[in-house]
């Protein structure tokens, strides 16, 4: 789905012109880890090192947020999202919100 949509955190696209700035688009996802994962991570954190379960969880959740942003961009008829930013905030113990936003624009080939 996101193949066609250009996603970039640069402010412009070399070689292409921004024909129209459409709107700000955003996507977010709140996830919490299930108790089993949480427990294992708690044990692992005594020894230190990477907590793979959490890495995966946050990665999935980030992908979901990007997907939602892309869907919103498609709805407003954009073909690119530029200047994309991420932000993470922990809402409660064990739950994190991933938020991603950017400018939906219409890019055309420069002549």
């Amino acid at each position, binding site marked *: 789905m996101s193949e066609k949509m*250009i*996603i*970039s*955190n*640069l*402010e412009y*696209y*070399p*070689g292409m012109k921004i024909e129209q700035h459409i709107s700000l688009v955003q996507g977010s996802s709140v996830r919490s880890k299930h108790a089993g994962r949480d427990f294992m*991570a*708690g044990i*692992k*954190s*005594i*020894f*230190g*090192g*990477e*907590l*793979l379960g*959490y*890495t995966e969880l*946050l*990665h999935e959740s*980030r992908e979901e947020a*990007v997907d939602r942003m892309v869907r919103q961009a498609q709805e407003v008829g954009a073909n690119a999202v530029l200047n*994309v*930013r*991420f*932000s*993470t*905030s*922990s809402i409660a*113990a*064990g739950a*994190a919100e991933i938020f991603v936003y950017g400018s939906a624009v219409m890019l055309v080939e420069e002549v």
Partner: protein
Amino acid sequence: MSNLIIFAVLMVLGYGFGQYNEQRHYKSIKKREALLSTLPAVATKYPPGDERHRQTMVMGSVVVASDYFKSFVASLVNVFGGRVRSFEPLLDRGRREAMLRLKQEASEQGASMVFNIKYETSRIGGKVPTIEVLAYGTALTPLHSPSTHGEQLSQQV
């Protein structure tokens, strides 16, 4: 008494495994950094405009935890203030690992450089300090010259 024994066991386990994990992680980081050193990743916003590139977002993230021993030492240092040496490697490891994952993703796409790198660090709750580091940026892949850079690298790894 039993509390004290549990504490001592956790301290020893934390110290032993923590040191071991850290050394192993640093070894692997250094090895992969050397492999990926040919791919420049910079924080500049403006890519060179002389060649057409395909742009894609790439990111790398990692969650790392300090160990029981180090977080105890840090809580002692906290009383007097000053440089908390035991947490510095934790953040360093997280940042470098995240950057490596970003570069790995970029090189798999055949990118020649990565621009506008941003880091984001967030604290994840828990008794032992745990952080998540995210690095993201825009990978530029040349449209014309088919690059085999990424394939070579993934074969080496």
